[in-house]
């Protein structure tokens, strides 16, 4: 929900100033990844049946949650700052790896729950 609100605020900022139009991909991803994909995983990890042998604490799921949100927030900072300094490219790379790692972790967490009875 926080990502949805942040994404919508960023969309307003991007539409007000032409210089800030560069954050357009950021607000789009805040909504589609930060809100929609996270909502899907939140509900799926809640409702899909857990395998009987699975550990009670879902380490992959928690890592995915923190890495995804850290990656998105880093992108939210790095993308506008990249207009002023090319050094911010390193933050974008870190953000990309955090988000990719998060998605792989969330897929690993959900995969065993996608099964026939």
């Amino acid at each position, binding site marked *: 929900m926080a990502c949805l609100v942040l994404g919508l605020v960023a969309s307003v900022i991007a539409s007000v100033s032409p210089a800030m139009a560069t954050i357009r991909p950021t607000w789009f991803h805040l909504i*589609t990844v930060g809100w*929609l*994909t996270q909502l*899907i995983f939140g509900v799926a990890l809640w409702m899909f049946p857990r395998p009987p042998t699975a550990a009670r604490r879902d380490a992959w799921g928690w890592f995915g949650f923190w890495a995804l949100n850290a990656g998105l927030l880093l*992108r939210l900072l790095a993308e506008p700052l*990249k207009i002023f300094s*090319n050094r911010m*490219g*390193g933050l*974008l*790379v870190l*953000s*990309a*790896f955090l*988000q*990719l790692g998060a*998605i*792989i972790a969330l*897929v690993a967490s*959900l*995969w065993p729950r*996608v*099964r*026939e*009875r």
Partner: protein
Amino acid sequence: MPRLSLWALRAALVYLALGAAAGATLMVARAAGAYQSFVWLIPLHIEFMLLGWTVQLAMAVSYWILPRRRSGPVRGNERLAVTAFIVINGGVLTASLAGLLETGVLATAGHGAEVLGAFTFAVSAWHRLPRSIVLRGRSLPII
């Protein structure tokens, strides 16, 4: 979970991982100033994330949880639903290739297949939609 939903959900998760890898590649390329060399990944990223992941997941879950029919096959015409999933996946892969091969014909064919797949799925699921909901003991019609 029916077998069709199982395979569609697994396919959706694979699309998500591959689409995220394409997105991460685009971000790294942008940071390195090599974005133009990777723009062919954009259609693949969009197709995989929007249709392959989000839409397919919604279709797979709805095929699983929509109310079962009381007569005939419980989930309606299964062959029609299988066809819908095959056509949509064919469309996603074809439209994704269009960016790589830079051919408008492939993009049109891919998007056309996606429309056909979505329509086929809608037809297969239509009769499973609830006609009414019960609210405070009263049955209210929906459609």
